[in-house]
């Protein structure tokens, strides 16, 4: 069976995500794993806004899942929060990379129906991807470790202005 390299994985996520954003007419979308780490995104201009959204969404997903289990369900359906101008959709699904979640923000240019429709299409594309090969040698572990101490010294000196 074909296995994807990590570079290919990233490309493999980005294209379906951008298609989803265009077809569903949403403003922003981000694909994260269960830990809240970002795998692909479209529409966020500032990295740190993105990671804040991702960590909060991972928290919502984790607490929703825990609540479902207490009530005898495996997991609840997708979550949808509607505000006056903007709406948020959080959809989870299984993939070769474990459970992933798509977070998307949309306004009056789209609708929850459209988002759901194109979310299903997006999930199918991701689920068709081959397994992922995470063992790719593109960094020398020895170099990494030997640089570690001096890098940390430098970082913390910069951080605390010492």
């Amino acid at each position, binding site marked *: 069976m074909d296995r994807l390299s990590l570079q290919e994985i990233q490309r493999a996520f980005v294209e379906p995500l951008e298609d989803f954003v265009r077809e569903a007419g949403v403003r922003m979308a981000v694909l994260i794993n269960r830990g809240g780490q970002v795998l692909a995104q479209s529409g966020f201009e500032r990295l740190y*806004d993105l*990671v804040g959204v991702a960590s909060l969404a991972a928290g919502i997903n*984790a607490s929703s899942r825990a609540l479902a289990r207490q009530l005898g369900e495996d997991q609840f359906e997708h979550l949808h929060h509607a505000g006056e101008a903007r709406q948020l959709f959080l959809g989870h699904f299984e993939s070769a990379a474990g459970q992933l979640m798509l977070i998307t923000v949309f306004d009056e240019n789209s609708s929850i129906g459209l988002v759901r429709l194109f979310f299903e299409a997006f999930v199918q594309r991701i689920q068709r991807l081959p397994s992922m090969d995470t*063992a790719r040698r593109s960094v020398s*572990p*020895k170099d990494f470790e030997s640089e570690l101490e001096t890098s*940390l010294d430098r970082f913390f000196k910069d*951080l605390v202005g010492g």
Partner: protein
Amino acid sequence: MSLVNYATREITCKIVYYGPGRSGKTTNLQYIHSRVPWDRKGEMVSLATEADRTLFFDFLPLELGRISGFTTRFQLYTVPGQVYYNATRKLVLQGADGVVFVADSQRSQLESDIESFRNLQENLLERSIDIRDIPVVMQYNKRDLPNVLGMERLEEELNFRDVPSFAASALLGEGVFDTLRAASEGVLRKLARKLETSADVAAGG
């Protein structure tokens, strides 16, 4: 679990600040947030009750810099310390690469420290993680207060694994960055070992 993205050359790791209620976990993050330049950090997100007790978690994204060409980012989380928030503590622990245990050094808080450390071990075990397999750093906080236990006593009661430990007064910033540095180093050293293992697999396969 650390995320290594070879395409964008980024490493993202998660460090969780654990410990009993009111031991100073949020104060650690607040101090870090107050000192780190704006271009190296994101917004600090705090999900707290009206009484400023952490309800779910605090979150602070931080960028350290580049190692071997990889931009290294940390996501710092705290857990709610109070005993009855165990369900949310378990959620926040998911995917942690390292733990900072913030103990309250006050004599009256020793039992809470011990109970919280036991709770950490149990919650990790529930996720099939042996506490010996995850980088842990001890911080003995509130050293500026009267009636604190001696460092030796705290080490004896809490640090039987002999992990790196630091005296701290998080409110004043003392020991905060030493603790974070040790935790970062532990997490990244573990990641380097993991890279080595996966490189061996790739080379052998």
